């Protein structure tokens, strides 16, 4: 009789490295993706610049220099990106605009995460009439013309920054809810969900403990793609003059102003646009990297 017989059949696997979850596997794959890692670094730099930049910039965002209207970039006087048509420093304003755009993007995405995941998971898992009612609601909201909705809000409540955020959050969760519902529908048929039901786990606990964690892969990927969507949407609103209010600014506002004066003052368009473009690129690279890392089968 050898040693092997005394030990339960299964312990051979104990030799393998300890508990490696799907998340740590995904993290390992993500680290190997150079584009995604580089994008994360760049995005982190942009975020840090947006957070601390306006404080350490040589000029305040609302300081008006009448003698330097539409001045080109000049390192000597601290207007690194030049000034805009009201004689305010573009460097400080670009970084501050980044703060607003990123904050809006992240906040609206968080709202869409919370509402969308909850809504989709409940609709998909419970199914039947509940599903029908919940998803028709989503369809109706989809059908509302977005601009009409925003203008209506503005008319009733005035131009509040909070409103923009509410409006953006209110539309961005619709896609999320649909994605999560689809995931929940397919998860519902998996045997481990049946096993959980047979084990006596209640509906709420199944949604929280099984459905939501198993949806998270696609959800995270979609969230990284929602942030740029929201930033673009805000830019669009600002472009139409429905965005944030002066002296606050955002990338969208700056680009809108810059676009009008591109023939005489190129820097007013180029700098904010470069920041916005870099951010969007980074988020898309990160999203792609996450998708590959979380779902290696799809490659």
């Amino acid at each position, binding site marked *: 009789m050898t040693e092997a017989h005394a030990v339960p059949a*299964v312990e051979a*696997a104990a030799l393998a490295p300890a508990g*490696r979850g799907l998340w740590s596997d995904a993290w390992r794959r993500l680290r190997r993706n150079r584009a995604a890692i580089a994008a994360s670094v760049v995005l982190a730099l942009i975020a840090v610049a947006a957070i601390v930049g306006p404080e350490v910039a040589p000029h305040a965002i609302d300081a008006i220099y009448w003698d330097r209207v539409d001045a080109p970039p000049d390192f000597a006087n601290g207007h690194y990106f030049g000034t805009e048509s009201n004689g305010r420093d573009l460097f400080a304003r670009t970084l501050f605009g980044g703060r607003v755009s990123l904050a809006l993007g992240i906040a609206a995405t968080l709202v869409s995460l919370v509402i969308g995941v909850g809504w989709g998971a409940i609709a998909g898992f419970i199914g039947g009439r509940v599903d029908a009612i919940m998803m028709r609601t989503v369809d109706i909201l989809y059908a509302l013309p977005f601009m009409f909705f925003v203008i209506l809000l503005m008319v009733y409540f005035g131009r509040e920054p909070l409103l923009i955020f509410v409006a953006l959050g209110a539309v961005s969760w619709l896609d999320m809810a649909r994605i999560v519902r689809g995931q929940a529908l397919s998860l519902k048929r998996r*045997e481990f969900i*049946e096993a959980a039901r*047979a*084990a006596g*786990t209640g509906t709420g606990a199944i949604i929280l*403990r099984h459905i939501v964690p198993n949806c998270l892969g696609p959800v995270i990927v979609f969230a990284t793609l929602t942030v740029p969507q929201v930033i673009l949407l805000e830019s669009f609103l600002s472009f139409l003059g429905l965005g944030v209010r002066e002296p606050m600014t955002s990338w969208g506002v700056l680009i809108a102003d810059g676009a009008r004066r591109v023939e005489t003052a190129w820097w007013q368009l180029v700098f904010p646009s470069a920041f916005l473009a870099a951010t969007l690129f980074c988020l898309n690279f990160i999203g792609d990297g996450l998708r590959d890392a979380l779902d290696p089968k799809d490659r």
Partner: protein
Amino acid sequence: MSAPLLAVEGLRVGFPLSGGLLGRVRTLVAVDDVSFELAAGETLGVVGESGCGKSTLGRAVLRLIPASAGRIAWLGQDLGTLDESAMRARRRDMQVIFQDPLAALDPRMTVGDIVAEPLRAFQPDQPKAERRALVEDTLRLVGLAPEMINRYPHEFSGGQCQRIGIARAMVLRPKLIVCDEPVSALDASIQAQIVNLLRRLQREFGIALLFISHNLSVVRHISHRVMVLYLGRVVELAPTAALFARPRHPYTRALIVAVPVPDPVVERARAHVPLGGEVPSPLRPPSGCAFHTRCAIARPACARDRPALETDGARRVACPHWRDGAG
């Protein structure tokens, strides 16, 4: 006499299928008029080919899918009268093991969390240490090292995953486990480990098993009684030894003959007259006796009259002509 652990009477499970141009709803009857009893500590094997409704039957017994008609009684109490929360409380005594061992485990949960899931559902206030001790104890019981508690399902082989599934089913020490093809996805050497484990657990804890499988060899080995299904109906139900030694229904006979025996001397001496045709679609079941289209001893009446399940001592058979073919 006290009520059996589980008594199923006239169980019928239909799935509505929307189809047809006019949105006419057709019904796929997966299980039709199935009745049986299961005593405490007994193993009832359920065999049949694809489409015979054996997996549906297992899920319907656990009320994981609703029955369209019939009665399922647990120790004499009709489960159909229970509301959702009372039914959930009942689940404490009835657990399930699935065919695909990996698919039955949530990939995002650790082994410890998976096995503890029924505990969380039924004893939510149990102290953590006590719960952990019980989980480790159960892992040991099914031949797994308790140190594996923090690992994830994908790190384990099929046989080990099936042990984890059995641990989850065993952690509440239930009275009934529905085993849905528990060894079909496993290799022969692992299959024997799992079959032996189930037999041992049954001996030690007096669990009743509803053992669903298409593998007649395994069913013969593990069951006390065997029920043969064909297109959702019971064609024969008998004690295992009697069923395999003297099968009565022509379908049972064909099924047993079709299983190859791993012994060339025996296998080559056996009569090989394979049953013709294949299982008809459950959407369009044949009239009368559903088996008449493939039956060697069928007569015209078989296409017309549905045979009743006749009881003869411990045996039941749904064929009025079985004596003719016994040969």
